[in-house]
């Protein structure tokens, strides 16, 4: 099986390639990137006038299966990923049961192999049941295909437990991903603590609740030598501390979500749960610091934290609604708008933030190498148009859920086609 992607502007940040070329994928892997390739019998995808990039990777999604399939399934989440230009996603373990054992990891891997149109890489839990007490079966989960560990949504409050997890993860050469939130400081909060929360009479989640845990974990990352990754960074001081840790040579990385850079508290429609997530939308100075961090390189990659919730769960009093919004289909449009069209970073850098950089955070190697368009790498490609206008209509979403603040928003540029292992799994309507 061969696919030849012709005449696109091939941008591969990992190899510093930015020129018109063809990409040949054979048996699921890239075999050649060069001008005027010919491949008799190959399916041809004409990418003239389009950007051809390595397949986009989202290292932070919730697919809700097993356990919450009324909100999303591996199949529907994967289709939403493809429709957003993503070829690989890493799914968080807060399913039911929690992915804290090789059994659940294997279930997800097998289910994804049968039903998902994109690559699905499970992230295992740090602790049993993500309860924060006993370490999960980390080695067995990694053997079954887990690529990282995290208790996302349920931060590990016990410093001794996260220390032991870091030691285990270091030996297995996987990153520890932390949702940084000191639960005593954020206790019961529903939105960012600021004038708006006080005005609306909602309990606040201070930026300090994130900063305190980032600080603690960086110290423990130094103690253990682990690869440590801050999920969905949102606070000014946290960005500064990650930058400082890296200056000191620690293996500390972080991701930012499109919504945390596109929206701040003043954009919130009061008591609308489509603006309720954790970390919460922060105020302008935090948002600016995250964007500055992306521009300076302090922030390593972008990730969506795609968090589907069924309509009924989001149609409640604000304080009763669960946290999180979907994000796979709007990520590229939002980040083009906030980062590239605004002139903060180049298109090439944005592509790196979705390809080579998340691949570096996870550390895929050998047969799993991805995030670049070079011979031997996975045959995953995202074809983009950085300018065409389109409007997001969540009614047409591939996701089972529709909790998004971006419904009806018009974007400039987005994905055109998604290729996974040499197969075209999604094309934008009209192309």
């Amino acid at each position, binding site marked *: 099986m061969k696919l030849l992607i012709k005449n696109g502007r091939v941008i591969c940040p990992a190899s510093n390639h930015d020129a018109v070329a063809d990409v040949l994928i054979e048996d699921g892997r890239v075999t050649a990137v060069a001008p005027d390739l010919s491949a008799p019998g190959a399916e041809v995808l004409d990418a003239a006038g389009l950007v051809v990039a390595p397949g986009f990777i989202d290292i932070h999604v919730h697919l809700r299966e097993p356990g919450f399939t009324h909100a999303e399934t591996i199949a529907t989440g994967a289709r939403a990923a493809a429709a957003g230009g993503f070829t690989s996603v890493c799914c968080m373990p807060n399913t039911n049961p929690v992915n804290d054992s090789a059994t659940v990891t294997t279930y997800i891997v097998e289910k994804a192999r049968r039903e998902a149109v994109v690559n699905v890489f499970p992230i295992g839990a740090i602790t049993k049941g993500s309860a924060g007490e006993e370490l999960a079966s980390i080695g067995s989960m990694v053997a079954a295909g887990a690529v990282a560990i995290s208790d996302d949504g349920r931060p590990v409050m016990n410093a001794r437990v996260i220390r032991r997890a870091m030691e285990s993860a270091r030996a297995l050469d996987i990153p520890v991903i932390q949702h940084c939130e000191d639960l005593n400081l954020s*206790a019961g909060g529903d939105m960012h603590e*600021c*004038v708006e*929360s*006080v*005005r*609306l*009479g*909602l309990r606040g989640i201070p930026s300090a609740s994130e900063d305190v845990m980032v600080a603690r974990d960086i110290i423990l990352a130094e103690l253990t030598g682990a690869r440590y990754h801050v999920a969905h960074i949102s606070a000014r001081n946290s960005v500064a501390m990650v930058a400082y840790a890296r200056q000191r040579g620690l293996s500390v990385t972080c991701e930012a979500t499109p919504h945390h850079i596109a929206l701040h508290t003043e954009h919130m429609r*009061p*008591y*609308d749960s489509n603006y309720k997530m954790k970390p919460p939308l922060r105020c302008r100075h935090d948002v600016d610091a995250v964007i500055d961090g992306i521009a300076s390189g302090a922030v390593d990659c972008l990730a969506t934290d795609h968090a589907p919730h069924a309509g*009924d769960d989001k*149609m*409640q*009093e*604000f*304080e*009763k609604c669960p946290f999180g919004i979907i994000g796979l289909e709007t990520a590229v449009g939002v980040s083009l708008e906030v980062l590239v069209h605004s002139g903060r970073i180049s298109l090439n850098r944005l592509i790196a933030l979705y390809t080579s950089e998340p691949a570096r955070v996870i550390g895929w190697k050998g047969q799993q190498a991805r995030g670049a368009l070079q011979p031997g790498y996975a045959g995953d490609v995202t074809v983009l148009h950085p300018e065409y206008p389109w409007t997001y209509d969540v009614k047409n979403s591939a996701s089972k859920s529709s909790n998004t603040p971006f419904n009806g928003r018009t974007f400039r540029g987005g994905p055109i086609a998604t290729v996974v292992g040499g197969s075209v799994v999604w094309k934008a309507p009209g192309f």
Partner: protein
Amino acid sequence: MSRGLLGIEETDRSVIEQILERAVAFQPHGGQTFAKVNTCTGMMVVNAFFENSTRTRSSFEIAAHRLGADTLAITASGSSVSKGESLVDTLNTLVAMRPSAIVMRHQASGAPHFLARHLTTPIINAGDGTHEHPTQALLDARTILDRCGRLEGLRVAIIGDIQHSRVARSNVHLLSKFGAEIVLCGPPTLLPREMASIATGVTLEYDMRRAVAGANVIMMLRVQLERLHEPSMQPGEYFRFYGLRQEHIALAHPDVIVMHPGPMNRGREISSEVADSQRSMILNQVENGVSVRMAVLERVLLQ
């Protein structure tokens, strides 16, 4: 006020003035009760109280009856909410019974605002969580006007658990719209610094003697024991530093009036001596509650 009355913050000063003016017409004279005016005969008001309330609910009920409207009371313990029904479904069921307006109290901030986006029936907010209690601010304003004749330029000290007080927020917005000088005072753990920025003319004070100095109006807030789950302050220490006593009255304006939204805890936030003094407007507030709510209901029902 477009359809109902959700909060003071989004209500124009001119609308507030009209309500306060109309309320005067409903105030009883001498020893009489409230006159039955019957301007809203044939209307139906649902009082949906998802959080316990005695005075506000009775006040709205009397107001509706004096206007000639029928009322139906729904309380949390007797409603389908206690059987697991969602708030939206409960309200949709009530709406299907075709009320003219829904008066609603709910423990979640923003619950009426959220519902107002999904329902066409006008909603009057009778208190939402720690957000707003608009009719309380209106009746407080009516009470101040009755005694002081103006709001502009008055120094009003609001004292107590500001953080969790919907009464404080609504009063801040109302007094600010009318150019009063507002001093918020309470223990630092219950007085977020951000309160100074939610409206103009607001200052914060942690020392009660400074807060009441020269005040024309002192509004005391109830210490909400159920809100004291956070480490804040021992009750004994609270009265020592934030309880209103005669010595504070001596620091205030000679004609100072003392208000309290009730229910009050004697000996916790206010001494009996002050609560029972001639300066205390507490019962005037209750009485104005009915007249002001008649004005609000009439406005909403007849629009």
